[in-house]
């Protein structure tokens, strides 16, 4: 199989062709490892888990951002493969891109639980309770593995390097939708900005390429709705009061649950 890779060595960029033995069941990451082992040990690319969990091996495969470890040769249905570094990022070497801006944007939306009284987090007597229905409102956006594919696909990121991007905005919504969080007013200053949520024009490419089904485009449109509601009607998404969040210990006279049976069927 012919593999064409966009190389960059710190000085110049060029396209390099490799002829590699490949099985239909191979992933693009298998092919890259084979090239590095047998053909060219100078080829640089990121990888870690090899199972679509770490988000390291994001690259543009035949013109579409994807994870190399999740893309099988048979799925591509082409005679040759064309590999490029992720679009809209600065390239460090070959297929390795600089994710500094990406991580800074993620950090800027404060992707952690904010409570008005931080002591509640430090000294909570019991766990903060979330019902399955409440969990379903944000858990989809919690699946983000920070692979950066959505920013490579986003046409707005291509023209505005300061735009927060689908990943950061989806993570902002993930915490805003969480009933345990009270940080909406802290986050809105960065979200309600010309480089924030309003720069998204809903091309949907982020959701199209997301390898974990996070659907950042949906989160961003929901976020716009929340920001509009807050600015026009001064209504913000209701967060739950601490008393409702903290699971109360069972009353003293409550029947005790039966002790757990550790016996294994058929065992002694």
């Amino acid at each position, binding site marked *: 199989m012919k593999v064409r890779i966009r190389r960059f060595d710190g000085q110049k960029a060029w396209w390099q062709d490799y002829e590699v033995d490949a099985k239909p069941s191979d992933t693009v990451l298998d092919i890259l490892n084979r090239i590095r082992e047998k053909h060219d040990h100078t080829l640089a690319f990121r990888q870690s888990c090899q199972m679509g969990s770490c988000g390291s091996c994001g690259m543009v495969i035949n013109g579409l951002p994807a994870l190399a470890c999740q893309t099988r040769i048979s799925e591509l249905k082409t005679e040759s493969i064309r590999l490029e570094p992720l679009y809209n990022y*600065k390239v*460090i070497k070959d297929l390795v891109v*600089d994710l500094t801006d990406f991580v800074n944007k993620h950090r800027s939306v404060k992707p952690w639980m904010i409570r008005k009284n931080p002591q509640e987090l430090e000294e909570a007597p019991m766990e903060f309770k979330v019902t399955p229905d409440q969990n379903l409102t944000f858990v*989809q956006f919690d699946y983000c593995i920070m692979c950066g594919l959505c920013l490579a696909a986003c046409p707005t990121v291509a023209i505005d390097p300061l735009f927060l991007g689908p990943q950061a905005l989806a993570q902002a919504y993930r915490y805003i939708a969480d009933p345990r969080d009270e940080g909406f007013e802290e986050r809105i200053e960065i979200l309600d900005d010309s480089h924030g949520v309003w720069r998204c024009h809903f091309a949907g490419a982020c*959701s199209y390429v997301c390898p974990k089904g996070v*659907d950042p*485009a949906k989160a961003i449109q929901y976020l716009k709705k929340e920001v*509009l509601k807050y600015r026009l009607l001064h209504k913000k998404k209701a967060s739950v009061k601490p008393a409702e969040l903290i699971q109360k210990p069972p009353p003293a006279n409550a029947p005790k649950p039966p002790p757990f049976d550790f016996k294994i069927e058929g065992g002694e």
Partner: protein
Amino acid sequence: MEKEKEEKRYKSGLLRSLRPYKFNLERYTYTLHRITGVILILYLIAHVFEIYHLALGPVAWQQTMALLSSLGIWEKIGLWIIAGSALYHGANGLRLILNEAFGMLLGKPVLPEYPYTPTSLSRNQKIAIYTIVVIVVALWIWAGIYLLWGLGII
């Protein structure tokens, strides 16, 4: 001395942002929305310039009208393109308002299960887009017939 990294972001910029090839249908609608928006802005500037001649008196206005008439069929083609741009930009804009301000056509948050199909790009969104395309094309054809009728061709 070696550069630490490439100075420019790889394959970014205006032209790249307008290239939807290989991506989803919504990204095609995005590109068309941007292009029709630019056409409408250019038209508005030209239109304000045209109307400005009214303030210069009847002679100037007659001269402007004569200049436009001298373009012949090109004036009508231009108007037809502007009509198409306004129709598409307006109709797609309504869809985007439904999406962005009211959170409609997006589906509810779900537990992601493989194979992932983002609900924001699924059936409802596609139906809305195809409906827009059908309505816009029908009205655009009607606008073309109307303009040809004005020219006395049909």
